[in-house]
Protein backbone atom coordinates (compact mmCIF):
# COMPACT_ATOMS: atom_id res chain seq x y z
CA UNK A 1 0.00 0.00 0.00
CA UNK A 2 1.32 3.41 -0.89
CA UNK A 3 2.14 6.10 1.63
CA UNK A 4 -0.49 8.52 0.32
CA UNK A 5 -3.15 5.84 0.34
CA UNK A 6 -2.37 4.98 3.96
CA UNK A 7 -2.61 8.68 4.81
CA UNK A 8 -5.98 9.12 3.06
CA UNK A 9 -7.55 5.93 4.44
CA UNK A 10 -6.15 6.64 7.90
CA UNK A 11 -7.38 10.22 7.92
CA UNK A 12 -10.90 9.30 6.77
CA UNK A 13 -11.16 6.57 9.39
CA UNK A 14 -9.84 8.93 12.04
CA UNK A 15 -12.37 11.65 11.15
CA UNK A 16 -15.21 9.14 11.27
CA UNK A 17 -14.03 7.83 14.65
CA UNK A 18 -13.64 11.38 15.96
CA UNK A 19 -17.19 12.36 14.98
CA UNK A 20 -18.50 9.19 16.58
CA UNK A 21 -16.55 9.86 19.78
CA UNK A 22 -17.83 13.42 20.04
CA UNK A 23 -21.41 12.47 19.21
CA UNK A 24 -21.81 9.59 21.64
CA UNK A 25 -21.81 9.72 25.40
CA UNK A 26 -24.28 10.32 28.17
CA UNK A 27 -25.80 12.96 25.91
CA UNK A 28 -26.11 12.33 22.17
CA UNK A 29 -25.06 15.22 19.94
CA UNK A 30 -25.97 14.96 16.23
CA UNK A 31 -22.97 15.32 13.85
CA UNK A 32 -24.39 18.47 12.26
CA UNK A 33 -24.59 20.20 15.63
CA UNK A 34 -20.99 19.16 16.32
CA UNK A 35 -19.77 20.76 13.09
CA UNK A 36 -21.88 23.89 13.71
CA UNK A 37 -20.55 24.28 17.24
CA UNK A 38 -16.92 23.75 16.25
CA UNK A 39 -17.18 26.21 13.36
CA UNK A 40 -18.83 28.84 15.51
CA UNK A 41 -16.18 28.39 18.18
CA UNK A 42 -13.35 28.68 15.66
CA UNK A 43 -14.85 31.55 13.64
CA UNK A 44 -17.09 33.49 16.02
CA UNK A 45 -17.48 36.44 13.59
CA UNK A 46 -18.85 34.59 10.60
CA UNK A 47 -21.58 32.41 12.02
CA UNK A 48 -24.57 33.70 13.93
CA UNK A 49 -23.67 33.90 17.58
CA UNK A 50 -24.93 31.24 19.94
CA UNK A 51 -28.10 32.26 21.62
CA UNK A 52 -30.18 29.43 22.98
CA UNK A 53 -29.34 27.67 26.23
CA UNK A 54 -29.16 24.37 24.35
CA UNK A 55 -26.49 25.81 22.07
CA UNK A 56 -24.49 26.98 25.05
CA UNK A 57 -24.71 23.59 26.70
CA UNK A 58 -23.57 21.98 23.47
CA UNK A 59 -20.67 24.37 23.27
CA UNK A 60 -19.48 23.58 26.79
CA UNK A 61 -20.00 19.86 26.26
CA UNK A 62 -18.23 19.71 22.91
CA UNK A 63 -15.53 22.35 23.16
CA UNK A 64 -14.55 21.99 26.79
CA UNK A 65 -15.30 18.37 27.63
CA UNK A 66 -15.45 16.02 24.68
CA UNK A 67 -13.04 17.63 22.20
CA UNK A 68 -10.02 17.84 24.53
CA UNK A 69 -10.60 14.27 25.62
CA UNK A 70 -10.92 13.11 22.02
CA UNK A 71 -7.75 14.91 21.00
CA UNK A 72 -5.91 13.61 24.05
CA UNK A 73 -6.89 10.07 23.03
CA UNK A 74 -5.79 10.64 19.43
CA UNK A 75 -2.42 12.09 20.42
CA UNK A 76 -1.70 9.55 23.15
CA UNK A 77 -2.70 6.63 20.92
CA UNK A 78 -0.68 7.90 17.97
CA UNK A 79 2.34 8.70 20.14
CA UNK A 80 2.40 5.35 21.94
CA UNK A 81 2.05 3.47 18.66
CA UNK A 82 4.83 5.54 17.04
CA UNK A 83 7.13 4.95 20.00
CA UNK A 84 6.31 1.23 19.99
CA UNK A 85 7.02 0.92 16.27
CA UNK A 86 10.36 2.70 16.65
CA UNK A 87 11.38 0.58 19.66
CA UNK A 88 10.52 -2.70 17.93
CA UNK A 89 12.58 -1.62 14.94
CA UNK A 90 15.57 -0.40 16.92
CA UNK A 91 15.69 -3.45 19.15
CA UNK A 92 14.99 -5.76 16.19
CA UNK A 93 12.58 -7.40 18.55
CA UNK A 94 8.82 -7.69 18.13
CA UNK A 95 8.38 -7.81 21.91
CA UNK A 96 9.82 -4.35 22.52
CA UNK A 97 7.35 -1.71 23.73
CA UNK A 98 7.56 2.02 24.48
CA UNK A 99 8.30 1.52 28.19
CA UNK A 100 11.20 -0.88 27.58
CA UNK A 101 13.85 1.51 28.92
CA UNK A 102 12.20 2.07 32.27
CA UNK A 103 10.03 4.98 31.17
CA UNK A 104 6.87 3.66 32.82
CA UNK A 105 8.63 2.79 36.06
CA UNK A 106 10.18 6.27 36.16
CA UNK A 107 6.87 7.98 35.41
CA UNK A 108 5.11 5.93 38.09
CA UNK A 109 7.68 6.90 40.70
CA UNK A 110 7.34 10.57 39.69
CA UNK A 111 3.56 10.40 39.90
CA UNK A 112 3.73 8.77 43.34
CA UNK A 113 6.16 11.41 44.62
CA UNK A 114 3.77 14.10 43.40
CA UNK A 115 0.85 12.38 45.17
CA UNK A 116 2.90 11.92 48.35
CA UNK A 117 3.69 15.64 48.37
CA UNK A 118 0.04 16.40 47.76
CA UNK A 119 0.94 18.24 44.57
CA UNK A 120 -1.76 16.68 42.44
CA UNK A 121 -3.05 19.58 40.39
CA UNK A 122 -3.81 18.90 36.73
CA UNK A 123 -0.30 19.95 35.69
CA UNK A 124 1.98 19.13 38.64
CA UNK A 125 1.34 15.40 38.54
CA UNK A 126 2.21 15.13 34.83
CA UNK A 127 5.28 17.28 35.49
CA UNK A 128 6.52 14.99 38.28
CA UNK A 129 5.77 11.92 36.18
CA UNK A 130 7.67 13.39 33.25
CA UNK A 131 10.68 14.20 35.41
CA UNK A 132 10.66 10.62 36.76
CA UNK A 133 10.46 9.13 33.27
CA UNK A 134 13.19 11.44 31.97
CA UNK A 135 15.54 10.53 34.80
CA UNK A 136 15.04 6.85 33.95
CA UNK A 137 15.74 7.43 30.27
CA UNK A 138 18.75 9.66 30.98
CA UNK A 139 20.30 6.90 33.07
CA UNK A 140 20.03 4.55 30.12
CA UNK A 141 21.31 7.04 27.57
CA UNK A 142 24.32 7.97 29.71
CA UNK A 143 25.09 4.29 30.12
CA UNK A 144 24.75 3.75 26.37
CA UNK A 145 27.16 6.56 25.60
CA UNK A 146 29.65 5.31 28.20
CA UNK A 147 29.41 1.82 26.68
CA UNK A 148 30.37 3.30 23.30
CA UNK A 149 30.62 0.73 20.55
CA UNK A 150 29.70 -2.00 22.99
CA UNK A 151 26.35 -0.24 23.59
CA UNK A 152 24.42 -2.96 21.82
CA UNK A 153 20.69 -3.46 22.07
CA UNK A 154 21.20 -6.17 24.68
CA UNK A 155 23.08 -3.73 26.89
CA UNK A 156 20.25 -1.20 26.52
CA UNK A 157 17.57 -3.75 27.37
CA UNK A 158 19.48 -5.03 30.41
CA UNK A 159 20.04 -1.46 31.61
CA UNK A 160 16.33 -0.77 31.11
CA UNK A 161 15.47 -3.77 33.25
CA UNK A 162 17.85 -2.63 36.00
CA UNK A 163 16.50 0.92 36.02
CA UNK A 164 12.91 -0.37 36.03
CA UNK A 165 13.64 -2.64 38.97
CA UNK A 166 15.34 0.17 40.90
CA UNK A 167 12.52 2.66 40.32
CA UNK A 168 9.85 0.07 41.12
CA UNK A 169 11.64 -0.66 44.40
CA UNK A 170 11.64 3.04 45.30
CA UNK A 171 7.95 3.18 44.39
CA UNK A 172 7.19 0.24 46.68
CA UNK A 173 9.21 1.86 49.45
CA UNK A 174 7.18 5.07 49.26
CA UNK A 175 3.92 3.12 49.02
CA UNK A 176 4.70 1.38 52.31
CA UNK A 177 5.09 4.75 53.99
CA UNK A 178 2.16 6.43 52.21
CA UNK A 179 -1.34 6.87 53.58
CA UNK A 180 -4.24 4.77 52.39
CA UNK A 181 -5.66 7.68 50.44
CA UNK A 182 -2.35 8.30 48.70
CA UNK A 183 -2.01 4.63 47.82
CA UNK A 184 -5.46 4.52 46.26
CA UNK A 185 -4.90 7.69 44.23
CA UNK A 186 -1.62 6.22 43.00
CA UNK A 187 -3.31 2.98 41.98
CA UNK A 188 -6.03 4.96 40.24
CA UNK A 189 -3.33 6.80 38.29
CA UNK A 190 -1.56 3.58 37.29
CA UNK A 191 -4.77 2.34 35.66
CA UNK A 192 -4.34 5.08 33.08
CA UNK A 193 -7.15 7.08 31.62
CA UNK A 194 -8.28 10.12 29.74
CA UNK A 195 -11.15 11.42 31.85
CA UNK A 196 -11.07 15.10 32.78
CA UNK A 197 -8.26 15.85 30.36
CA UNK A 198 -8.17 19.51 29.36
CA UNK A 199 -6.86 21.46 26.39
CA UNK A 200 -3.63 22.10 28.34
CA UNK A 201 -2.98 18.35 28.29
CA UNK A 202 -3.67 18.23 24.58
CA UNK A 203 -1.22 21.04 23.85
CA UNK A 204 1.36 19.36 26.06
CA UNK A 205 1.29 16.26 23.87
CA UNK A 206 0.61 17.80 20.46
CA UNK A 207 4.04 19.23 19.63
CA UNK A 208 6.09 16.20 20.79
CA UNK A 209 3.84 13.74 18.94
CA UNK A 210 3.99 15.73 15.71
CA UNK A 211 7.71 16.52 15.85
CA UNK A 212 8.83 13.02 16.86
CA UNK A 213 6.43 11.50 14.32
CA UNK A 214 7.89 13.59 11.51
CA UNK A 215 11.51 12.89 12.50
CA UNK A 216 10.81 9.15 12.66
CA UNK A 217 9.09 9.25 9.26
CA UNK A 218 12.10 11.10 7.85
CA UNK A 219 14.39 8.44 9.31
CA UNK A 220 12.08 5.60 8.20
CA UNK A 221 14.42 4.15 5.60
CA UNK A 222 17.36 4.29 8.04
CA UNK A 223 15.26 2.30 10.49
CA UNK A 224 14.53 -0.32 7.81
CA UNK A 225 18.23 -0.68 7.08
CA UNK A 226 19.13 -0.91 10.76
CA UNK A 227 16.92 -4.02 10.90
CA UNK A 228 19.54 -5.84 8.81
CA UNK A 229 22.07 -5.43 11.63
CA UNK A 230 24.79 -2.95 12.53
CA UNK A 231 27.33 -4.15 9.96
CA UNK A 232 24.88 -4.02 7.08
CA UNK A 233 23.61 -0.65 8.23
CA UNK A 234 27.07 0.89 8.40
CA UNK A 235 28.02 -0.47 4.98
CA UNK A 236 24.81 1.06 3.59
CA UNK A 237 25.66 4.48 4.97
CA UNK A 238 23.55 4.45 8.16
CA UNK A 239 25.52 5.09 11.36
CA UNK A 240 24.00 2.44 13.64
CA UNK A 241 24.86 3.91 17.04
CA UNK A 242 23.80 7.46 16.28
CA UNK A 243 20.56 6.36 14.66
CA UNK A 244 19.76 4.02 17.51
CA UNK A 245 20.49 6.59 20.22
CA UNK A 246 18.49 9.28 18.45
CA UNK A 247 15.50 7.01 17.89
CA UNK A 248 15.55 5.52 21.37
CA UNK A 249 15.77 8.97 22.97
CA UNK A 250 12.95 10.37 20.84
CA UNK A 251 10.67 7.41 21.42
CA UNK A 252 11.40 7.33 25.16
CA UNK A 253 10.77 11.04 25.71
CA UNK A 254 7.60 10.87 23.64
CA UNK A 255 6.42 7.99 25.82
CA UNK A 256 7.43 9.91 28.94
CA UNK A 257 5.27 12.87 27.95
CA UNK A 258 2.27 10.72 27.09
CA UNK A 259 2.50 8.53 30.17
CA UNK A 260 2.82 11.60 32.37
CA UNK A 261 -0.46 12.96 30.98
CA UNK A 262 -2.52 9.76 30.72
CA UNK A 263 -0.89 7.37 33.13
CA UNK A 264 0.44 4.09 31.79
CA UNK A 265 -1.78 2.73 29.03
CA UNK A 266 -0.60 -0.72 28.08
CA UNK A 267 -0.98 -2.66 24.90
CA UNK A 268 -1.26 0.17 22.33
CA UNK A 269 2.48 0.55 21.82
CA UNK A 270 3.10 -3.19 21.76
CA UNK A 271 0.32 -4.46 19.57
CA UNK A 272 -0.69 -1.67 17.19
CA UNK A 273 2.63 -1.92 15.30
CA UNK A 274 2.05 -5.67 14.91
CA UNK A 275 -1.49 -5.24 13.65
CA UNK A 276 -0.27 -2.64 11.18
CA UNK A 277 2.64 -4.84 10.08
CA UNK A 278 0.05 -7.44 9.05
CA UNK A 279 -1.82 -4.79 7.07
CA UNK A 280 0.90 -2.64 5.43
CA UNK A 281 4.13 -4.65 5.79
CA UNK A 282 7.26 -3.96 7.83
CA UNK A 283 8.67 -1.00 5.88
CA UNK A 284 8.98 1.77 8.47
CA UNK A 285 7.63 4.77 6.62
CA UNK A 286 4.35 3.03 5.85
CA UNK A 287 4.34 1.27 9.19
CA UNK A 288 4.91 4.45 11.23
CA UNK A 289 2.16 6.32 9.42
CA UNK A 290 -0.28 3.42 9.68
CA UNK A 291 0.60 2.85 13.35
CA UNK A 292 0.02 6.51 14.20
CA UNK A 293 -3.48 6.36 12.72
CA UNK A 294 -4.13 2.88 14.10
CA UNK A 295 -3.03 3.83 17.61
CA UNK A 296 -5.09 7.03 17.53
CA UNK A 297 -8.25 5.27 16.35
CA UNK A 298 -7.82 2.33 18.73
CA UNK A 299 -7.38 4.52 21.79
CA UNK A 300 -10.17 6.87 20.72
CA UNK A 301 -12.67 4.04 20.34
CA UNK A 302 -11.52 2.29 23.51
CA UNK A 303 -11.91 5.53 25.43
CA UNK A 304 -15.40 5.89 23.95
CA UNK A 305 -16.25 2.45 25.31
CA UNK A 306 -15.14 3.49 28.82
CA UNK A 307 -17.49 6.47 28.62
CA UNK A 308 -20.42 4.41 27.37
CA UNK A 309 -20.17 1.44 29.71
CA UNK A 310 -21.75 2.42 33.00
CA UNK A 311 -19.79 1.10 35.93
CA UNK A 312 -20.98 0.69 39.49
CA UNK A 313 -20.08 3.37 42.06
CA UNK A 314 -19.77 5.91 39.22
CA UNK A 315 -16.20 4.87 38.54
CA UNK A 316 -15.18 4.92 34.90
CA UNK A 317 -13.76 1.79 33.31
CA UNK A 318 -9.99 2.15 32.79
CA UNK A 319 -9.05 2.64 29.15
CA UNK A 320 -6.10 0.24 29.46
CA UNK A 321 -8.54 -2.53 30.34
CA UNK A 322 -10.50 -1.86 27.17
CA UNK A 323 -7.45 -1.61 24.88
CA UNK A 324 -6.32 -5.03 26.09
CA UNK A 325 -9.78 -6.61 26.01
CA UNK A 326 -10.41 -5.41 22.45
CA UNK A 327 -6.91 -5.57 21.04
CA UNK A 328 -5.69 -8.90 22.39
CA UNK A 329 -8.35 -11.10 20.74
CA UNK A 330 -7.95 -9.25 17.42
CA UNK A 331 -4.21 -9.69 17.64
CA UNK A 332 -4.63 -13.40 18.35
CA UNK A 333 -6.92 -13.68 15.33
CA UNK A 334 -4.32 -12.04 13.07
CA UNK A 335 -1.57 -14.20 14.53
CA UNK A 336 -3.46 -17.44 13.94
CA UNK A 337 -4.40 -16.35 10.42
CA UNK A 338 -0.80 -15.52 9.55
CA UNK A 339 0.33 -18.91 10.89
CA UNK A 340 -2.24 -20.65 8.68
CA UNK A 341 -0.99 -18.82 5.59
CA UNK A 342 2.60 -19.92 6.14
Amino acid at each position, binding site marked *: MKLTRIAVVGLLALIAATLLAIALGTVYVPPLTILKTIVSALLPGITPSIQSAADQTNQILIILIRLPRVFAAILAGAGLALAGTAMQGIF*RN*PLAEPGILGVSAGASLGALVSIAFGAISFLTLPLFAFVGASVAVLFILILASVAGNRGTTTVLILAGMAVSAFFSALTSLILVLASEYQVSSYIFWTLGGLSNRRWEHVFLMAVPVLVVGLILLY*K*GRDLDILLLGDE*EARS*LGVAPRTTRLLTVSLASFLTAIIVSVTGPIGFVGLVVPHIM*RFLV*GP*SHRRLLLASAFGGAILLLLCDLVTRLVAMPRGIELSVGVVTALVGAPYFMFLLIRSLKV*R
Partner: protein
Amino acid sequence: MITKPKTSPTISCHDLTYHVGGKEGRDILINLSFTAKGGEIIGICGPNGAGKSTFLKALGGLIRPQQGQIMINGQPLTQIKTRSLARELSFLPQDTQVPFDFPSRDIVLMGRHPYAANLAAWSAADLAIVDRCMDAAECRAEADQLVTTLSGGERQRVMIARLLAQDTPIVLLDEMTANQDIRHASLLLDLAQRLAASGKLVIMVLHDLRAAARACSRVCLMHHGQIVADGEPVDVLHEGHIEFVYGIPVKTFINPFGEWDFDISRHDEDAQL
Protein backbone atom coordinates in the same frame (compact mmCIF):
# COMPACT_ATOMS: atom_id res chain seq x y z
CA MET B 1 24.96 -2.18 -11.68
CA ILE B 2 28.50 -2.90 -12.86
CA THR B 3 29.56 0.67 -13.45
CA LYS B 4 33.21 1.24 -14.24
CA PRO B 5 34.64 3.32 -11.38
CA LYS B 6 35.46 6.92 -12.37
CA THR B 7 38.87 6.68 -10.75
CA SER B 8 40.60 3.44 -9.92
CA PRO B 9 39.99 2.72 -6.20
CA THR B 10 42.77 1.93 -3.77
CA ILE B 11 42.71 0.59 -0.24
CA SER B 12 45.67 0.24 2.06
CA CYS B 13 46.49 -0.27 5.68
CA HIS B 14 49.67 -0.12 7.66
CA ASP B 15 50.60 -1.81 10.93
CA LEU B 16 47.01 -2.76 11.76
CA THR B 17 46.45 -4.30 15.19
CA TYR B 18 43.09 -5.32 16.58
CA HIS B 19 42.68 -6.63 20.09
CA VAL B 20 39.56 -8.04 21.72
CA GLY B 21 38.61 -8.98 25.26
CA GLY B 22 40.74 -6.57 27.34
CA LYS B 23 43.79 -7.82 29.25
CA GLU B 24 42.80 -11.48 29.11
CA GLY B 25 41.84 -11.21 25.45
CA ARG B 26 43.85 -11.78 22.33
CA ASP B 27 45.12 -9.99 19.25
CA ILE B 28 43.05 -10.89 16.22
CA LEU B 29 45.15 -8.82 13.82
CA ILE B 30 48.85 -8.20 14.43
CA ASN B 31 50.83 -5.43 12.68
CA LEU B 32 49.10 -6.17 9.42
CA SER B 33 49.94 -4.18 6.30
CA PHE B 34 48.22 -4.48 2.96
CA THR B 35 47.68 -2.56 -0.27
CA ALA B 36 45.27 -3.22 -3.13
CA LYS B 37 43.95 -1.38 -6.17
CA GLY B 38 41.10 -1.45 -8.69
CA GLY B 39 40.97 -4.41 -11.08
CA GLU B 40 42.34 -6.83 -8.53
CA ILE B 41 40.26 -9.71 -7.20
CA ILE B 42 41.86 -10.83 -3.98
CA GLY B 43 41.10 -13.97 -2.02
CA ILE B 44 41.75 -13.90 1.73
CA CYS B 45 42.33 -17.50 2.81
CA GLY B 46 43.43 -19.20 5.97
CA PRO B 47 42.26 -21.47 8.78
CA ASN B 48 39.46 -20.72 11.23
CA GLY B 49 40.43 -17.97 13.63
CA ALA B 50 43.19 -16.60 11.40
CA GLY B 51 41.51 -13.18 11.43
CA LYS B 52 40.14 -13.17 7.86
CA SER B 53 36.66 -11.80 8.62
CA THR B 54 38.02 -9.35 11.17
CA PHE B 55 40.49 -8.06 8.60
CA LEU B 56 37.68 -7.62 6.06
CA LYS B 57 35.53 -5.80 8.63
CA ALA B 58 38.41 -3.50 9.50
CA LEU B 59 38.88 -2.67 5.80
CA GLY B 60 35.16 -1.90 5.58
CA GLY B 61 35.27 0.38 8.62
CA LEU B 62 32.92 -1.88 10.57
CA ILE B 63 35.36 -2.24 13.44
CA ARG B 64 38.00 0.18 14.69
CA PRO B 65 41.46 -1.35 15.12
CA GLN B 66 43.38 -0.01 18.12
CA GLN B 67 46.46 0.62 16.03
CA GLY B 68 47.12 1.46 12.41
CA GLN B 69 45.11 3.33 9.86
CA ILE B 70 43.14 2.29 6.81
CA MET B 71 43.28 4.53 3.76
CA ILE B 72 40.58 4.55 1.10
CA ASN B 73 41.71 6.31 -2.09
CA GLY B 74 44.42 7.97 -0.03
CA GLN B 75 42.00 9.33 2.58
CA PRO B 76 41.88 8.01 6.15
CA LEU B 77 38.77 5.83 6.52
CA THR B 78 37.90 7.39 9.88
CA GLN B 79 37.53 10.78 8.23
CA ILE B 80 35.06 9.63 5.59
CA LYS B 81 31.38 10.19 6.42
CA THR B 82 29.33 7.00 6.76
CA ARG B 83 27.16 7.85 3.79
CA SER B 84 30.06 8.83 1.51
CA LEU B 85 31.85 5.64 2.50
CA ALA B 86 28.76 3.67 1.46
CA ARG B 87 29.21 5.03 -2.07
CA GLU B 88 32.87 3.92 -2.11
CA LEU B 89 32.70 0.57 -0.45
CA SER B 90 30.13 -2.20 0.01
CA PHE B 91 30.30 -5.14 2.37
CA LEU B 92 28.64 -8.53 2.39
CA PRO B 93 28.53 -10.12 5.88
CA GLN B 94 28.62 -13.90 6.29
CA ASP B 95 24.95 -14.07 7.13
CA THR B 96 22.21 -11.50 7.51
CA GLN B 97 19.14 -12.18 9.60
CA VAL B 98 16.08 -10.05 8.88
CA PRO B 99 13.67 -10.03 11.83
CA PHE B 100 10.56 -8.82 9.98
CA ASP B 101 8.76 -9.87 6.79
CA PHE B 102 10.30 -7.75 4.05
CA PRO B 103 9.83 -8.75 0.42
CA SER B 104 13.24 -9.53 -1.12
CA ARG B 105 12.96 -6.61 -3.55
CA ASP B 106 12.71 -4.13 -0.64
CA ILE B 107 15.97 -5.51 0.76
CA VAL B 108 17.73 -5.07 -2.59
CA LEU B 109 16.33 -1.53 -2.86
CA MET B 110 18.16 -0.70 0.37
CA GLY B 111 21.33 -0.93 -1.71
CA ARG B 112 20.22 2.31 -3.39
CA HIS B 113 19.92 4.09 -0.03
CA PRO B 114 23.36 5.78 -0.16
CA TYR B 115 22.22 7.59 -3.33
CA ALA B 116 18.63 8.43 -2.38
CA ALA B 117 17.16 11.39 -0.57
CA ASN B 118 15.57 10.35 2.71
CA LEU B 119 12.00 11.28 1.82
CA ALA B 120 12.02 10.64 -1.94
CA ALA B 121 10.25 7.61 -3.36
CA TRP B 122 12.41 5.15 -5.29
CA SER B 123 12.96 6.31 -8.86
CA ALA B 124 12.21 4.20 -11.92
CA ALA B 125 15.97 4.04 -12.49
CA ASP B 126 16.49 2.60 -9.00
CA LEU B 127 13.78 0.00 -9.59
CA ALA B 128 15.33 -0.96 -12.95
CA ILE B 129 18.79 -1.30 -11.35
CA VAL B 130 17.32 -3.52 -8.65
CA ASP B 131 15.69 -5.81 -11.22
CA ARG B 132 18.96 -6.13 -13.12
CA CYS B 133 20.90 -6.87 -9.94
CA MET B 134 18.42 -9.55 -8.93
CA ASP B 135 18.81 -11.09 -12.37
CA ALA B 136 22.58 -11.05 -12.06
CA ALA B 137 22.52 -12.70 -8.63
CA GLU B 138 19.84 -15.16 -9.83
CA CYS B 139 17.25 -14.22 -7.24
CA ARG B 140 14.73 -12.38 -9.43
CA ALA B 141 12.25 -15.26 -9.03
CA GLU B 142 12.25 -14.59 -5.28
CA ALA B 143 11.74 -10.82 -5.70
CA ASP B 144 8.23 -10.77 -4.26
CA GLN B 145 8.79 -13.49 -1.68
CA LEU B 146 9.34 -12.60 1.94
CA VAL B 147 13.01 -12.72 2.78
CA THR B 148 12.18 -14.57 6.01
CA THR B 149 10.84 -17.52 3.98
CA LEU B 150 13.98 -17.97 1.86
CA SER B 151 16.69 -20.59 2.39
CA GLY B 152 20.12 -19.51 3.61
CA GLY B 153 21.58 -19.63 0.10
CA GLU B 154 18.66 -17.75 -1.47
CA ARG B 155 18.80 -15.10 1.22
CA GLN B 156 22.52 -14.69 0.66
CA ARG B 157 21.91 -14.13 -3.07
CA VAL B 158 19.35 -11.44 -2.21
CA MET B 159 22.05 -9.78 -0.08
CA ILE B 160 24.49 -10.06 -2.99
CA ALA B 161 21.93 -8.39 -5.28
CA ARG B 162 21.65 -5.67 -2.60
CA LEU B 163 25.42 -5.27 -2.72
CA LEU B 164 25.39 -5.08 -6.53
CA ALA B 165 22.71 -2.39 -6.36
CA GLN B 166 25.04 -0.36 -4.16
CA ASP B 167 27.48 -0.41 -7.12
CA THR B 168 30.61 0.71 -5.28
CA PRO B 169 34.21 0.81 -6.58
CA ILE B 170 35.37 -1.36 -3.66
CA VAL B 171 33.54 -4.62 -2.89
CA LEU B 172 34.21 -6.69 0.24
CA LEU B 173 32.68 -10.18 0.36
CA ASP B 174 32.77 -12.43 3.40
CA GLU B 175 32.20 -16.07 2.45
CA MET B 176 29.94 -15.28 -0.48
CA THR B 177 29.84 -18.91 -1.65
CA ALA B 178 29.53 -20.66 1.72
CA ASN B 179 25.81 -21.52 1.45
CA GLN B 180 25.64 -21.83 -2.31
CA ASP B 181 25.13 -24.92 -4.43
CA ILE B 182 27.80 -25.67 -7.06
CA ARG B 183 25.93 -23.85 -9.82
CA HIS B 184 25.42 -20.66 -7.82
CA ALA B 185 28.87 -20.75 -6.24
CA SER B 186 30.39 -20.83 -9.71
CA LEU B 187 28.00 -18.15 -10.99
CA LEU B 188 28.81 -15.80 -8.11
CA LEU B 189 32.56 -16.26 -8.58
CA ASP B 190 32.10 -15.33 -12.26
CA LEU B 191 30.15 -12.29 -11.13
CA ALA B 192 32.96 -11.26 -8.76
CA GLN B 193 35.43 -11.63 -11.63
CA ARG B 194 33.28 -9.40 -13.83
CA LEU B 195 33.22 -6.77 -11.10
CA ALA B 196 37.02 -6.79 -10.99
CA ALA B 197 37.24 -6.77 -14.80
CA SER B 198 35.20 -3.54 -14.80
CA GLY B 199 37.90 -1.89 -12.69
CA LYS B 200 36.40 -2.44 -9.24
CA LEU B 201 38.48 -3.78 -6.38
CA VAL B 202 37.08 -7.07 -5.06
CA ILE B 203 38.36 -8.56 -1.81
CA MET B 204 36.75 -11.78 -0.64
CA VAL B 205 37.23 -14.12 2.25
CA LEU B 206 37.16 -17.66 0.89
CA HIS B 207 37.48 -21.05 2.52
CA ASP B 208 37.44 -22.84 -0.81
CA LEU B 209 41.06 -22.88 -1.98
CA ARG B 210 40.13 -24.21 -5.43
CA ALA B 211 37.74 -21.29 -5.90
CA ALA B 212 40.42 -18.86 -4.73
CA ALA B 213 42.93 -20.32 -7.17
CA ARG B 214 40.43 -20.24 -10.02
CA ALA B 215 38.82 -16.84 -9.51
CA CYS B 216 41.40 -14.62 -7.84
CA SER B 217 44.18 -12.60 -9.34
CA ARG B 218 45.89 -12.57 -5.95
CA VAL B 219 45.63 -14.59 -2.75
CA CYS B 220 46.56 -13.54 0.79
CA LEU B 221 47.10 -16.44 3.16
CA MET B 222 46.43 -15.49 6.77
CA HIS B 223 47.65 -17.18 9.92
CA HIS B 224 47.39 -15.96 13.54
CA GLY B 225 46.39 -12.42 12.56
CA GLN B 226 49.07 -11.90 9.96
CA ILE B 227 49.36 -12.28 6.21
CA VAL B 228 52.00 -14.98 5.80
CA ALA B 229 51.92 -15.20 2.01
CA ASP B 230 50.66 -12.75 -0.57
CA GLY B 231 50.83 -13.00 -4.34
CA GLU B 232 49.70 -15.00 -7.35
CA PRO B 233 47.44 -17.92 -6.36
CA VAL B 234 49.81 -20.63 -7.60
CA ASP B 235 52.70 -19.16 -5.61
CA VAL B 236 50.74 -18.56 -2.42
CA LEU B 237 48.83 -21.85 -2.47
CA HIS B 238 52.07 -23.76 -2.23
CA GLU B 239 52.16 -27.14 -0.50
CA GLY B 240 54.54 -25.85 2.15
CA HIS B 241 52.42 -22.76 2.89
CA ILE B 242 49.22 -24.74 3.15
CA GLU B 243 50.73 -27.33 5.43
CA PHE B 244 52.20 -24.54 7.60
CA VAL B 245 48.94 -22.62 8.15
CA TYR B 246 46.39 -25.44 8.11
CA GLY B 247 48.60 -28.05 9.75
CA ILE B 248 47.67 -30.74 7.26
CA PRO B 249 49.87 -32.09 4.46
CA VAL B 250 48.48 -31.58 0.95
CA LYS B 251 49.52 -32.47 -2.56
CA THR B 252 48.91 -29.75 -5.16
CA PHE B 253 48.69 -30.46 -8.88
CA ILE B 254 47.25 -29.20 -12.14
CA ASN B 255 44.12 -31.19 -12.93
CA PRO B 256 43.21 -32.47 -16.44
CA PHE B 257 41.34 -29.19 -17.12
CA GLY B 258 44.51 -27.23 -16.54
CA GLU B 259 43.29 -25.81 -13.21
CA TRP B 260 45.09 -25.64 -9.89
CA ASP B 261 43.89 -28.38 -7.56
CA PHE B 262 44.94 -30.09 -4.39
CA ASP B 263 44.42 -33.28 -2.51
CA ILE B 264 44.81 -33.88 1.18
CA SER B 265 47.71 -36.32 1.57
CA ARG B 266 46.59 -39.56 3.11
CA HIS B 267 49.94 -41.18 3.85
CA ASP B 268 49.92 -40.20 7.56
CA GLU B 269 46.46 -41.65 8.10
CA ASP B 270 47.39 -44.80 6.19
CA ALA B 271 50.39 -45.23 8.43
CA GLN B 272 48.27 -44.92 11.55
CA LEU B 273 45.68 -47.40 10.28
